[in-house]
């Protein structure tokens, strides 16, 4: 039980993610989480504005079910399967983040300096969440997939397009981490 309650090492987690992908493939589907955002647009009536959203969303109900499960999985993991120890980050990361104003890095999954309501309800804080979400939604659909569809499934299927997409993920991520975060929070 102790092994379950402590954080799982990468060599356990990675293969388990591969099992998620294989399960969905075996069930006749593919592993791709960002598609759900498109489905949600369609359910909301976006088909009126673009034929990109005119498809039978009911054929995607299985994937929305995965989303619902994932949400509940998150609840179970935190409230039933966790010993709530801090994340064992590289001390250098903690020091770097402290300089940017992020105190106690690793004490929670997400930084309170971005996700706590005190910050969220400021113009800057709200702007950060909206811009971040917008970039994720726009970028994943433009690229035709996210971490699950490209980095895991696409690379496992030896797809060159997915490799290009993953290189893009890193161009954007490195730019944000090394140049923009210091401007936004520094």
């Amino acid at each position: 039980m102790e092994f379950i309650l402590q954080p799982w090492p990468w060599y356990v987690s990675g293969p388990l993610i591969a099992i998620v992908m294989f399960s969905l493939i075996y069930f006749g589907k593919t592993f791709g989480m960002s598609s759900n955002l498109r489905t949600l647009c369609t359910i909301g009536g976006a088909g009126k504005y673009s034929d990109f959203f005119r498809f039978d969303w009911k054929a995607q109900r299985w994937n929305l079910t995965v989303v619902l499960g994932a949400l509940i999985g998150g609840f179970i993991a935190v409230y039933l399967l966790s010993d709530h120890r801090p994340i064992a980050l590289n001390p250098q990361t903690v020091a770097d983040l402290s300089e940017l104003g992020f105190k106690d890095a690793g004490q929670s999954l997400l930084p309170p300096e971005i996700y706590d309501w005190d910050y969220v309800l400021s113009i800057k804080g709200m702007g950060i969440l909206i811009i971040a979400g917008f970039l994720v939604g726009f970028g994943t659909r433009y690229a035709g997939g996210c971490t699950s569809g490209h980095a895991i499934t696409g690379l496992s299927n030896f797809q060159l397009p997915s490799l290009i997409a993953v290189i893009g993920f890193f161009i954007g991520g490195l730019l944000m981490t090394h140049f923009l975060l210091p401007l936004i929070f520094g």
Partner: protein
Amino acid sequence: MKFIKFFLVGIFFGIVLVKSEAVSWYRIIEMFKFQSFHMYGIIGSAVVLGGLGVWLIKKMKVKNIDGKVIQIPPKERSFTRYLFGGSIFGLGWALAGACPGPMYILVGTGVFSMLIVIAAAILGTFAYGVLKNKLPH
């Protein structure tokens, strides 16, 4: 009832991503700073095992639950959309610290402000759908 297997896969996925700490903003930043092997180990081992499995599935013509030979649809050939779209996603990924799977999982962990990120991501997807024909692919 036919959805229950997807529900269970989702629960498993949510648990694994929390227990691996891959849903943590801090782990994403640490990855982009190249200060830990953790995230590379997770994605790398998933891809190595995934690649081996997909190769075997194709070679042995493994059938799925419906008895059909498994085929994984190839990604459409292009360069621009993957590089541009990927980079835009990367910017958002490092800022929010969550990609489209973890977003939902993190709501389950009790971070309700993540719903704003999800709403904005839906809006971003909508904007892409509307602008699609004007963008270079």
